[in-house]
């Protein structure tokens, strides 16, 4: 006896309890809705779909709260970056042995004290140019300084020879004759090496500065009167300023621009200079910081500091300073966390900082390298340098919202019209079904395209989104209407309706409270499947450029640029991730819809 009980307990554990209950008891405890639920819960595919859908739903509803999107964002240095968080993954060999570090927009270059060059990060600038292909002569040379530009790297070896690799098509390798190895070998001792967007500059020990590179949009000549007095050079994207040996800062070129009017306070007592992409900054001996140029990301407003800054370094749109008490402070643009100095940096004794673009490397006195800033993009960036992950979750939110609202509109119209047509029949039915026929005979996609074209792109993006929802809703109610009508035609002949009529229940109540609940289950199936269809339609419209217009992301318009073979092949991350999440999402919804259908209609289980 006890043996039997045990097995029944085991049986219960493994879900095989129905065997113990005799058929009458089972019949009694199973209400239709419970049976549906049971059927649904035991459908493995359906449950997988439901869980998958909820996971995606959570991702697109909760993650956007923590991941704000800047719709106007675009950065030409961060376009088409491959996925991966490798931008600050410097090789371990470099630690404790750093001679120099510099970084470009997506990659880093470092030299150790033995003259060996290391490259890390996304080094492929274009299909052909790869920074990681360091020329043989540079690998053999004993390099001591490097500087990375947008798509080129300059290096200086122990004999003061200057090398360039990377992109050299725009004059990046026009090294001035004074610095060319073969001509005056080793006569000019280089003390500083800098690189801007596509330009480079060097300062020699005898106080001369040389600049070369892409001459378009830049000002590379140096006033001869400054030559011989130059202590330091700071380069923005295309312009430069000089720190002279009398402690004054000058703009060394000939063109007049936002930088050529150096603030008067920087005429003396300047100890350090630095430049971000669009601003320059001077540090005076009393610790005051003066920023000039086109500060657009807050880099022109230095914060209050706890102690006197002693050294300054510039990134793309941010500055980092080393304070007298050993702390480090960063300010400016923080979209990639480049101004969030980690506590470990403030705890350590910092020797020097290398900061450019969105990355900061701090080298401690005991040789460790600490980093903060942009690690990379988990899913890469698109052709405007926007993070795909952010756009993916926000796009999902848009697509799902549009699909959901359109579906709700369609359901409301469909249920009301279908209910009326089905219950009243006769001329009401005839009229409604003719209208449904007219709407239904409009070819869907072309007509939606037309309506979208009529709405036009002149109106507000937000309003346009609402209109698209309404258009989709107005075009897709006919299916629901027919379904509800057919179901009601079948239901209204049944006895309970007669009973309700006999009891004097109002007609509206009979339709919506007595008949409609019976139609509900089949409606649920249709609504689930139609939700997926609405999402597909929205994305198709957006894909063709007639739906929700950029910069608002949707899963459809994120794929608009993807149908050319260059994107498909080289920038696979721009379409693969969107396709996967969208595909998985619609598959999940359809699985759920199928599972509900099976649960509602036991007959279809056989299929």
């Amino acid at each position, binding site marked *: 006896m006890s043996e039997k009980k045990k097995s029944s307990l085991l049986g219960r554990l493994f879900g095989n309890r129905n065997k113990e209950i005799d058929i009458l008891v089972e019949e009694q405890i199973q209400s239709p809705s419970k049976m549906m639920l049971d059927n649904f819960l035991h459908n493995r595919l359906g449950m997988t779909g439901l869980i998958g859908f909820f996971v995606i739903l959570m991702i697109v509803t909760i993650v956007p709260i923590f991941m704000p999107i800047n719709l106007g964002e675009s950065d030409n240095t961060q376009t088409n970056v491959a996925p991966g968080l490798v931008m600050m993954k410097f090789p371990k060999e470099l630690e404790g042995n750093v001679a120099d570090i510099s970084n470009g927009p997506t990659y880093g270059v470092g030299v150790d004290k033995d003259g060996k060059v290391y490259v890390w990060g996304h080094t492929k600038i274009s299909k052909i140019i790869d920074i990681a292909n360091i020329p043989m002569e540079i690998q053999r040379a004993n390099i001591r300084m490097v500087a990375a530009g947008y798509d080129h790297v300059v290096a200086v070896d122990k004999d003061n020879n200057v090398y360039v690799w990377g992109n050299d098509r725009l004059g990046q390798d026009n090294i001035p004759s004074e610095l060319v190895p073969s001509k005056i070998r080793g006569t000019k001792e280089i003390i500083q090496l800098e690189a801007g967007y596509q330009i480079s500059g060097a300062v020699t020990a005898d106080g001369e500065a040389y600049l070369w590179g892409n001459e378009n949009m830049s000002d590379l000549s140096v006033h001869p009167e400054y030559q011989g007095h130059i202590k330091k050079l700071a380069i923005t994207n295309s312009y430069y300023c000089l720190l002279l040996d009398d402690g004054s800062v000058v703009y060394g070129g000939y063109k007049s621009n936002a930088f050529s009017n150096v603030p008067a306070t920087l005429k003396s007592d300047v100890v350090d200079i630095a430049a971000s992409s669009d601003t320059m900054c001077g540090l005076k001996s009393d610790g005051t910081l003066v920023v000039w140029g086109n500060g657009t990301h807050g880099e022109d407003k230095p914060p209050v500091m706890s102690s006197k800054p002693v050294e300054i370094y510039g990134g793309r749109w941010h500055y980092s300073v080393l304070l007298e008490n050993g702390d480090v402070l960063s300010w400016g643009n923080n979209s990639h966390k480049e101004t969030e100095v980690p506590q470990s940096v403030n705890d350590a004794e910092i020797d020097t900082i290398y900061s450019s673009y969105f990355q900061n490397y701090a080298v401690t006195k005991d040789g460790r390298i600490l980093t903060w800033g942009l690690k990379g993009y988990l899913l890469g960036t698109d052709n405007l340098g926007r993070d795909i992950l952010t756009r993916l979750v926000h796009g999902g939110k848009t697509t799902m919202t549009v699909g959901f609202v359109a579906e709700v509109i369609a359901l409301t119209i469909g249920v009301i019209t279908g209910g009326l047509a089905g219950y009243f029949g006769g001329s009401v039915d005839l009229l409604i079904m*003719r209208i449904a*026929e*007219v709407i239904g*005979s*409009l*070819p869907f*996609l*072309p*007509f939606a*395209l*037309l*309506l979208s*074209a*009529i709405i*036009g792109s002149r109106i507000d993006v937000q309003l346009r989104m609402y209109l698209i929802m309404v258009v989709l809703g107005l075009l897709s109610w006919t299916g629901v209407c027919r379904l509800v009508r057919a179901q009601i035609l079948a239901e209204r002949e049944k006895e309970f309706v007669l009973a309700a009529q006999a009891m004097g229940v109002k007609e509206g109540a009979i339709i919506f409270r007595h008949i409609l609940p019976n139609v509900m289950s089949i409606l649920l199936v249709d609504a689930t499947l139609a939700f*997926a269809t609405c999402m*597909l339609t929205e*994305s*198709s419209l957006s*894909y*063709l450029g*007639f739906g929700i217009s950029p910069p608002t992301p949707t899963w459809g318009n994120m*794929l608009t640029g*993807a*149908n050319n*073979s260059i994107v*498909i*092949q080289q920038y*696979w991350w721009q*379409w693969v991730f969107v*396709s996967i999440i*969208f*595909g998985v999402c*619609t*598959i999940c*919804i*359809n*699985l759920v819809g*199928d599972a509900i259908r099976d649960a509602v209609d036991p007959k*279809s289980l*056989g*299929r």
Partner: protein
Amino acid sequence: MLKYVLKRIGYMIVVFFAVSFLMYCLYNLIPQDPARMELEPMKSSMKPAEYQARYEELRKEMGLDDPIVVRYARWMGLTKDLKGNMKGLLEGYFGYSRYFKQDIVEVVKEPIKNTIFINIFATLLALGITIPLGIYCAVHKGGKVDNFTQVLTIVGYSIPTYIIALVFIYVLGVLLRWFPVSGMGTPGANYTGLKYWTDRMYYLCLPLIVMTFGSLGGMTRYVRASMIDALSMDHIKTARAKGVHEKQVIYSHAWRNALLPIIGIVIGWFLGIFSGSVIIENTFGLSGMGSLYIKGLNQHDYELTLAIQMFYTVISLVGALITDLSYGLVDPRVRIDK
């Protein structure tokens, strides 16, 4: 039966006029001024007063200030146009394309040929695969092939066509380099005869594969479901009990019954031959009706898009009629003259 057909055709005509009027009004909602567009190139060579006078003259010539019903009737060919001819949609004149500077009938000729050409192949391919596959899956329900097909078809009908297209372009066009990814023939090759056809088919391979794959999902599931229903009928048991050969049971007894629900879809597909897929044609750079429509919208050539739209509408109306009638023809139990 005849009465029913006549009634349906009557309804159809009413619906047609309703749709066309709706459409005409919609197109008139688009802010545009053909008279100003016509005059724009000459604007610099005219004095403002002269320009204004000519503009108003042109508006009158084009009849832009008449009420919309009058313009609709003119466009439809119900009344005489401004030159006094009966020239409208009903007389077979579809209008003039401003972008292509040709009559629309001429503009549409080539794309519609291409579209029909592509779609005939796609439809035949899809039907040729889905029907046998659906029958096989129904007969071998629960087997490995069936389960695999079920998963594949759910993927097929859930994923939007353009994503399927991207995947196939990537795998077959870019990675394996089997097929060209865009266009309708080798550019500048000017092949003739057999070579022209093989070249063209080679270029159409990828779109055809994508279209077939995209339509596999829904149809296979449908065929399978209706075939399972048919196979569970009592007469199948009887036939098997009688000792009828299994092949005959499936193809003669069950398939004929399974055909009924499918026939509507099959007819819909064949009518869809004329419409062309907007997305496929756009993605693969094919010149068909779909891409012509998009071009019309993008170039604001609304007379062209309106004509194409009307063409689509007529097809779908006729399609609905034929489907309903064919049910009655195929299945004597469906009594449509009720």
